[in-house]
Structures are given as C-alpha cells and as structure tokens.
C-alpha cells in the first residue's frame, strides 16, 4: 500500500498554486515589454549607408538584397572637384529567410543598421515579409537608445 504522505504533499502543492495569482499575460489586451537589446527587427539608417555591400556578403542566409549606383555629388569645399558618391537604390531584407543572427548589424562599418525589439510585423502573405528601404527606415523610430552597462563593465568604444 503506497505510504500516504508523498501523495498528500503533492496535492498540497497543486492546491497552493491554485490559490496563488496566475502568470498569464493576455496578449492582445496586455502586452509585455521586451528587453531593449532583444533582436526583433533590423532598422536601416539610410544616410549612413555607403552601399559597401559588406552586410549582404556576410549574411549567412543570403537574405539582404542591395542595389546602388555611383553619381556625382557637389564638392565638399566650394573649389574642389565634384565627389563621386554611392547612392542606395534598393535595400531589402527578406524576414522570411532572416534568422536574426545580427552579423549584418555588427559587420556594418558605418553604423547604418540597428536592432529594435519590435516584433509585431507578421504578414498574411509571405511576400510582404520582404521589407524595403523605407519600411526599414520606419523601424528606426522604434530603436531604443543604448542601455547602460552593468557595473564593472568597460564601455567598448563604438559598441552598437
């Protein structure tokens, strides 16, 4: 005959939990804020981008498509020669393929890509997951400023 205390204690645990408050967050009504550093979506700061194609080439999933062209730009100093600057025509990230690894954000030498903890951008059709340049620009608004580091940490120069 199995001795009772073990079984009774088990019942006690479930009864205690029944009386305690539940942990459910009812999603559509209440929303839980994500940590500022969590990788929800990639935002593009267009003016920083110099079409160096580094992110498209380092992306393991091949999901960044960039097209750009060179053009003459007014010289910096009035007397100088017109500068040739590279303009961005197309910068698409296909979130259907992206695995949120963050290599592109890290490898970008000109700080044009940022992480934002936004996560509510699911689409009924998978084609709309290809975010183009201005959609990525919109995400810039949701990029939090860099959180302070823990005590004892040395601020890395230019850490994203």
């Amino acid at each position, binding site marked *: 005959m*199995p001795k009772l205390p*073990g*079984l009774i204690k088990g019942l006690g645990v479930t009864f205690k939990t029944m009386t305690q408050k539940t942990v459910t967050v009812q999603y559509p009504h209440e929303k839980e804020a994500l940590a500022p550093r*969590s*990788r929800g979506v990639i935002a593009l700061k267009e003016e920083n981008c110099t079409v160096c194609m580094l992110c498209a080439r380092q992306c393991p999933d091949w999901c960044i498509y960039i097209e750009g062209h060179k053009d003459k730009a007014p010289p910096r100093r009035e007397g100088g020669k017109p500068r040739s600057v590279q303009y961005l025509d197309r910068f698409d990230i296909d979130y259907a393929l992206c695995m949120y*690894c963050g290599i592109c954000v890290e490898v970008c030498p000109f700080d044009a890509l940022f992480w934002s903890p936004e996560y509510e951008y699911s689409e009924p059709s998978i084609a709309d997951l290809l975010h183009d340049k201005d959609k990525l620009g919109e995400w810039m608004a949701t990029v939090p400023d860099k959180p302070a580091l823990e005590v004892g*940490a040395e601020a*890395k120069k230019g850490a994203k």
Partner: protein
Amino acid sequence: MTVTDHQKSMYIAGQAADARINIELETEGMTLNIGPQHPATHGTLRIVVRLDGEQVVWADPVCGYMHRGYEKLTEVRTYPQITTLVNRIDWLSSFANEVPFILAAEQLMGIDAPPRAQWIRTILFEMARIANITLFLGEMGAQLGAITPVFYAFRDREHVLNLIESATGGRFHPNYDRIGGLKDDLPKGWVDECKDVMHRVRDFCDELETLLMGNEIFAQRMRGIGVIPAQVGLDYGLSGANIRASGVDWDIRRDEDSPLAWKHCDWKVWTHVDGDSYARYWVRLQETREASKIVDQLLDGLPAGPIMAKVPRIIKVPAGEAWVHTENPLGEMGYYVVSQGGLGPFRCKIRSASFNNVSIVPWLLQGVYVPDIITILSSLYFILGDIDR
C-alpha cells in the same frame, strides 16, 4: 437441398478470412511505429517497435528527419556564421553549444578571452543548463501522465529565458559568443535580477521534488525501469546525467581545466548508483540546484574589466586541429575543428551527446512494457537536433 456453388465459395471465403484474422492476431507480433510525430519523442524520432502482446521484442530508432547536414555546412561558412548555425543543434541550451566551438577556435589561435568574458560565459552556460533541464524535469511528469508539472517548468523557465534575452538579445539563439570574448557586456541591473531568478529556480526544484519525487506512483513508475549498468553506458558513449546516474563520477567541468570559470566556485557532482530512470531524474534535479548555486557564486565574484580580447577584425584561424569538449546539459558535447588557415574551418566534426545517448535504445528496450518505452525514452532526455545534426 444441395448446397449451391455460390454458398460453397462464400463459406470457404469466410473460413479463409477467419483463418487470416487468427494468424494475424496470434502468432506474428504487432509492429508499432512510435513517432515520428509522437508526444514522447522530443522532435521527429521514429522508433519501430515489434511487440509481443505489450512487451517489446525488438526496437530500432529511425532518425534523420531533422538532419540538416551541419558538418557539410560548416565547410562553406566563416567562424561568426558558424556560431549562429551551431547554437541550433541543441536548441534548448543554445549558448552551451557555442562555447566549445569558440574555445576550439581560440585554442587554435592561441588567444584567451579576458577573465570577465570567461566568467560571463560560465554564467550563461549554467543558465542554459537550467533552461534545458527545468524543461526536462517538468516534462517527465507529462510523459507519465501528470499534466501539472509541465506548466510549473515553463512558468519558471520563462524568467531564465528573459534574462538570457535581456543580456544577449535572443531567447533561444543568443549568438553572443565571439572568438576572443563576448559581443557585449551585461545590461545594468542584470546581476541582481539574476540573483532572484536563481532563487526562484531553487524554489521550483523543491516544488518539483515534493510534487513528483515524493509521489509513490512516480517512484513506482520510474524505479528499476531502464537500468543501464556503468560498463554498458561507457561502451555506448553515454555521457552527462545518464552516465552519472549509473555511478560513473565524471564531469568535464570539474575534471578538466577548461578556461571557463568553474574552478573558481565550489559545487558538487552528483552521482547515483541505481542507473534507472529514477536515478537519472534525481541526478538532473540535483544538477539544476548545483547550477543555480554556481551562478550565484559567479555573480558575487564577477571581475571587472574588458569583455573582448584584442582580435583582428577579419579572423583567420591558423592551421591545426583542436578537440574541445564541455559538459553540456545533455552530456558531453565536443567539436573536432580542423583548420587550414582560412576564414572558415576545413572540417568540423560535431560530437553531440544525444547521438550516443539514443544509440543505446535498441539494447535498452528489449523486454520492456509499452508504457515503459515512453518512460525510458524520456529519462534518457535527448533533443532531436542533437541526434540528427
């Protein structure tokens, strides 16, 4: 009244049908397919089982449904790209997969990460262990029919995942480890938050202990089921809690001088003598408690300093071969990295724990009842990504 031919043929057909049913029922045992979509297998593992009544005569796991060909992929990728790939092998404790790979690359390059990075790596390693094993502790109850523990496991595991996310950015796939250190330092207030989450993890372990371990039905279902003697376990290359439950006192964190920070805190390696499912569950429960104690001690002694060693921006690992293995939550996970000085490794053999842990199943399942198949499978605690790579 003569019997018409039609009646005669109908009669013979009826007899033949009865005979066929008898043959089918009595003699030839029933072949049962457990999986590939089955609640007891963590992912897509199919086990073909030949039964005689309710007892297993012969069992053969069929894997490969989740085979992504990692070793082939690593040959065409650079080291940072492989770090993102590699934490998808054992997706429950994904940070724990990155560490041995990065250590192997660092060993080849002869670089050492600064102490603060090593300590934070160990903290996140132990938190990945907690996230992995708490799911097992709750889910083992579900395999035996108790629905409630799973929810406690997920409830308390959520806090650990939130912490990992606030530090690394990803709940399941942190991609936080770099050759020479870590990507970023911890955010403000992370250490105190981590302290009371560890406290909550210990409460969860006590709660599970009263709810399941004390429960006589649970003990009756688990004791003496799926006994693995130490020698057979070693032969099959079982590692982690599976081998410690059979009495082998071996833990890579304590017995090998790995650059991580396990040697700075005192903790105990738990072993059990029986080697049955109950022992495996018990050892894992103690390991979760030890892991939370390790994290507490590491948090207290976290040294200040840089998070990243001096590393060139484009990393070229010099030629050579390195084998680094660590004590992952599922068992011993190791990478045999062969490098020829390129951006990516020339060949990277991934030794995952669950592959060996499941290779013992044909030996272990002989003469076992059907409900015990599920108990034994869950007590071995494998993850499909780990088996199929």
